[in-house]
């Protein structure tokens, strides 16, 4: 069986012929559930039991009817037997027989028939492609496949607020709905927001003071520039990309063996963000860095291809041909989601049900990766491919790919070759040959296949073997990388601009960052997205410049204050009438605790994984303590698939088996237990308390102020100060004779206060 199951379902709201979206929605929401609950058990769902010859699982069956004629006459409920039966007026014809439906349900079905009995067919194309064309006009016109536009900046009424084009786009859609943006956030809130967003850490009391005191016109800009120059910037930005790259230090799945050299890829990502490496170069390195001209001298080129090698694999797969295909499939799927925002993997077993990706296009891409060496071998248990880096003593190894397909015990001459479409995802049932071209909906139907001139030397098909077609000199990965980094490709710049926006605002302009296809969300601000993508490319694919453009807007600097009227008009804040309050990600909570306590170790790079390369990952308390019991930044803690560090799991780290553009942000009891009881949190509270007592030996007010500044980025309000002091004194009193040493009593009480401050919502949220 193949791991990608069949994705069809009867429940999908598919494309529609001759009915409005409202009608389709009404059918899916109200009618289909009634049919499924009360009718289809005897009328169609079960082949063995079709009563009265009537099946009610498609519109055609319903109109054809059963033994007594059509079940429905569209537009005429009075003449429709389906409706008549519901009323229980005919003694011999009561439907459903188990009991009369409620009046409300009958009304739904009657309205549906009266309105023409609209029935959207799941997954059926709205129209057939014109003769000689592969795709329908509707598919071609889908927003994400259009070239990126350079839209004019809209005019707005409140021109004063529109500080830059970003604001103009946001404001014009707010104004169209009669809404206004929230007031600006205060400087302390802003500084905490931007410091976490760019560096992943809270601002220090000194940084807060500097910004609050800076009266220059460029104060805000200076903050942005300062933060993007810190090494912590790259670490924080890299973490988002590592989610997309499903980064981990172990294989996961069945055979959880260590990737002892994966950390080089992680360090490469940190370095790339810190250097503000142009994103087009970043794409090329990860997809085909080994094929770039200076791969022999620039270690980034090889290291970047670790992106392709890092995936989870069934390392003991007994069927080696399938194993090879599965590995390439995982690569195609990850490349598709990461750079194109397309779920290409869905086209392995059948033409994509929702997006115009034929299986032939999928196998065309797959052939570029089966012509690439990803594994050292395909033995049981298989090991991933590594290559020596062209630096230092040559002993540094990185997970990296190579051209060529001949390894392990898979037959073949090692030449990159076309694959054949594998019907239902099974290599034993080959279909047509799939030339190495890019998805045709994006790159056109008339493409020359990549990888150099093809040779018509297809080997003779063999029973029980993957069928291969024409050979070519190269895999085609280099051309793929170039195409992905081409500004004319409508998706990569949009997808990345959206990721950058998502991490600054908490939601993307497209709220499904890894799916820009039909089942993904539509952009809330399509013109803004295109403007940002265009600007991104114009600025040399510079992520830092793109971020600065966004951060300099008034939109980013709005407060997160609630507004009743706006909330009623736009409950999901899709139009951005205020800033989204966000829960900090797991790493930011941990790093924030360490940083606020003054305890963080900012050493960069290297590996904390204490496990032999490609040996099974051992998990026990002693090893865990070494891996995680450190004050290093969270990005440097090993990510072990199937056994993610419990702190990270508790606070919704991305599941590292799959690419993740957007994490969950849950609030559950185990998080509270963590903040209340984990030795780690208590330790940070102890350290902070000791520091407060040392820094202000006599001034209790100053201690509370300092704790608030470090944890929340603001001083306490007068009543908060009073409450804190009274908490400490009551706590000390309650400890009483149990802690006879007053210094110790004081330390314990202040540590309790610090822990309460850490455990409160304000610490875990960005306003």
């Amino acid at each position: 069986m193949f791991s990608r199951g069949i994705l069809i379902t009867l429940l999908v709201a598919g494309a529609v012929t001759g009915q409005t979206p409202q009608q389709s929605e009404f059918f899916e929401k109200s009618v289909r559930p009634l049919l499924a609950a009360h009718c289809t058990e005897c009328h169609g769902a079960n082949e063995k039991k079709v009563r009265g010859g009537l099946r009610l699982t498609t519109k055609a069956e319903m109109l054809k009817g059963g033994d007594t004629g059509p079940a429905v006459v569209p537009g005429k409920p009075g003449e429709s037997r389906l409706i008549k039966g519901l009323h229980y007026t005919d003694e011999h014809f009561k439907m459903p027989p188990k009991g009369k439906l409620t009046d409300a349900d009958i009304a739904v079905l009657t309205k549906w028939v009266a309105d023409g009995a609209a029935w959207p067919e799941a997954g059926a194309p709205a129209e057939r492609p014109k003769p000689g064309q592969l795709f329908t006009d509707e598919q071609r016109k889908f927003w994400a496949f259009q070239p990126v536009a350079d839209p004019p900046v809209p005019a707005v009424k409140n021109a004063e607020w529109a500080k830059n084009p970003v604001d103009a786009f946001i404001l014009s859609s707010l104004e169209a709905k009669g809404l206004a943006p929230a007031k600006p956030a205060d400087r302390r809130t802003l500084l905490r927001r931007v410091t976490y967003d760019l560096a992943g850490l809270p601002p220090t009391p000194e940084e807060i003071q500097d910004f609050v005191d800076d009266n220059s016109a460029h104060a805000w800009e200076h903050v942005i520039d300062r933060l993007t120059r810190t090494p912590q910037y790259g670490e924080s930005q890299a973490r988002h990309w590592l989610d997309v790259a499903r980064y981990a230090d172990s294989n996961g799945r069945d055979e959880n063996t260590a990737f002892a050299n994966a950390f080089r890829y992680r360090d490469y990502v940190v370095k790339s963000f810190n250097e503000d490496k142009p994103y087009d170069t970043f794409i090329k390195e990860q997809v085909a860095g080994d094929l770039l001209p200076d791969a022999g001298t620039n270690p980034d080129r090889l290291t970047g291809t670790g992106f392709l090698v890092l995936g989870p694999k069934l390392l003991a797969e007994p069927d080696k041909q399938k194993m090879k295909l599965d590995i390439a499939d995982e690569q195609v799927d990850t490349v598709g989601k990461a750079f194109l925002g397309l779920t290409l993997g869905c086209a392995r077993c059948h033409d994509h049900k929702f997006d115009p990706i034929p299986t032939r296009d999928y196998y065309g891409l797959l052939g570029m990766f089966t012509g690439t060496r990803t594994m050292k071998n395909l033995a049981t248990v298989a090991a991933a491919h590594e290559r020596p880096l062209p630096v230092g003593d040559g002993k540094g190894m990185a997970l990296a790919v190579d051209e060529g397909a001949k390894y392990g015990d898979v037959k073949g001459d090692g030449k990159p070759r076309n694959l054949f479409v594998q019907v239902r995802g099974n290599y034993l049932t080959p279909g047509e040959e799939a030339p190495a071209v890019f998805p045709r909906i994006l790159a056109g139907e008339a493409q020359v296949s990549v990888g150099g001139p093809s040779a018509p030397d297809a080997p003779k098909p063999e029973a029980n073997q993957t069928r291969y077609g024409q050979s070519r000199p190269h895999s085609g990965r280099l051309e793929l990388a170039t195409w992905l980094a081409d500004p004319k490709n409508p998706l990569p710049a949009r997808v990345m601009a959206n990721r950058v926006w998502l991490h600054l605002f908490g939601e993307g302009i497209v709220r499904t960052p890894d799916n820009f296809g039909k089942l993904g969300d539509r952009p809330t601000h399509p013109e803004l997205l295109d403007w940002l993508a265009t600007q991104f490319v114009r600025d040399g694919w510079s992520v830092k410049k793109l971020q600065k453009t966004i951060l300099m807007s008034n939109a980013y600097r709005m407060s997160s204050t609630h507004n009743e009227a706006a909330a009623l008009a736009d409950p999901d804040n899709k139009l951005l009438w205020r800033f989204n309050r966000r829960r900090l990600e797991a790493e930011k909570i941990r790093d924030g605790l360490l940083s606020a306590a003054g305890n963080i170790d900012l050493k960069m790079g290297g590996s904390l994984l204490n496990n032999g390369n490609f040996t099974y990952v051992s998990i026990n308390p002693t090893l865990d303590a070494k891996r995680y019991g450190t004050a290093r930044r969270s990005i440097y803690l090993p990510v072990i698939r199937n056994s993610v560090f419990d702190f990270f799991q508790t606070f919704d780290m991305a599941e590292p088996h799959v690419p993740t553009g957007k994490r969950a942000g849950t609030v559950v009891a185990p998080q509270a237990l963590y903040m209340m009881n984990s030795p780690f949190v208590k330790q940070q509270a102890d350290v902070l308390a000791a520091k407060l007592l040392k820094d202000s030996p006599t001034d209790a007010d100053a201690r509370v102020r300092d704790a608030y500044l470090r944890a929340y980025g603001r001083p306490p309000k007068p009543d908060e100060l009073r409450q804190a002091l009274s908490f400490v004194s009551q706590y000390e009193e309650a400890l009483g004779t149990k802690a006879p040493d007053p210094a110790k009593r004081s330390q314990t009480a202040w540590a309790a206060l610090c822990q309460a401050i850490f455990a409160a919502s304000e610490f875990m949220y960005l306003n």
Partner: protein
Amino acid sequence: MSDLLHNTRRHFFRDCGLGLGSMALGSLLAKDGLAAPKKPHFEPKAKAVIFLFMAGGPSQFELFEPKPELQKLHGQPIPDSFTKGKRFAFMDTFSKEKPKLLGTKRKFAQYGKSGTWVSECLPHFAKIVDDVTMVKTVATNVFNHGPAKVFFNTGSPQFGRPSIGSWVTYGIGSSAADLPGFVVLQSGPRGPRGGVLNWASGFLPTTFQGVPFRSGGDPIINLSSPAGVTADRQKDVIDAVKDLNADRLDATGDPEIATRIASYEMAYRMQTSAPELIDIGKEDKKTLDAYGAVAGAASFANNCLLARRLVERGVRFVQLYHTDWDHHGDSVNNLDKGLDKVCKDVDQPMAALVQDLKRRGLLDSTLVVWGGEFGRTPMGEARDTVGRNHHIDTGAMWFAGGGVKAGFTLGETDEFGFSPTQDRVHVHDLQATILNQLGLDHLKLTYRFQGRDFRLTDVHGEVVKKMLA
């Protein structure tokens, strides 16, 4: 519910006029188990499930499925008609030479009024057969351990779907106010393949995720107060946190903060209730002995006892994993000593669990499920010792309580036990059946994600009515 929460709720309804409205807040509070249990689709037979997951795939031929024909033709190659077009795990061990039929060394007898066949490996289980439905024809789709377990638990071998326990707690909530609704217990030499994916909540909110308890030490991580912190002092800290959060709530009007306040309440209550729960030393000696449980030990026996205690306290879904049943025939994992060991681990406790539930009147409302991710082949493997390969066509599972028939065997297989000949039951059918016993219609239990309604049973599954009382 505390005044604070009460006030918070009122504050939202009356003062904030949030577009989210009462439903959103209600569901947010429900996330931490504060809401009352939800109404199922129809009157349920069972209130809880205890799923004894035998990780690795137990061999039906050594436990429940005597096949005289297999004994007779032991050592002969299996006729081609059986294996043609089939794929197996670890094909290489099959390709060295043609797979040969493997008769079992174990002795079988019929037990109870039902005359259920059980081997000498499970003498304790033999005593409870009249409370059990044995299903001999369980088929699945996937023959590698990790994906097959994930398939059994989530209905799909793909990652990212919610597990059955998550679907159940999403569907009907939990009546345990002080404990999570879905708890996972593990024993055996290592964790089950697939790990957390087996009890993950997928695209359902993480509050429905299975909470793994540990059988030694703290059952829940960070459950105990730090050493030297008394309950009173900790309450002080929590009250301070609540005050701080309540201030934020006033300032921001954010329902998530209300949820966070609630989560601290739940966490504090768990701290009180969970230690009492795991203190099996409170059980009388007779009960401990019946299970073979020893206070403080980490064992399947302790977990079975803990499972009963969880169900007594209203926990909805308890899943026990015991490794390792993967008896291919290497020096450790074989059908001789390897099987003896694992049978000894589970036989007495699982029988004691069913008997204990029955004695306490809990068996009628608790569905006990026993089985692995797939069955094993009637052929042996060409390895060092005696073993069998993974087999997806058929395997055996048993069920007790919760509205299934007592003393009943469902399904028949061919002369070698290679394929079902009657009453084939697919994993999706069993998922539908388990939901059904809890009052949930597997067709109606859906969740909309990325524009599509998802179900545990995907587009398959039919309730196995024949096994229901």
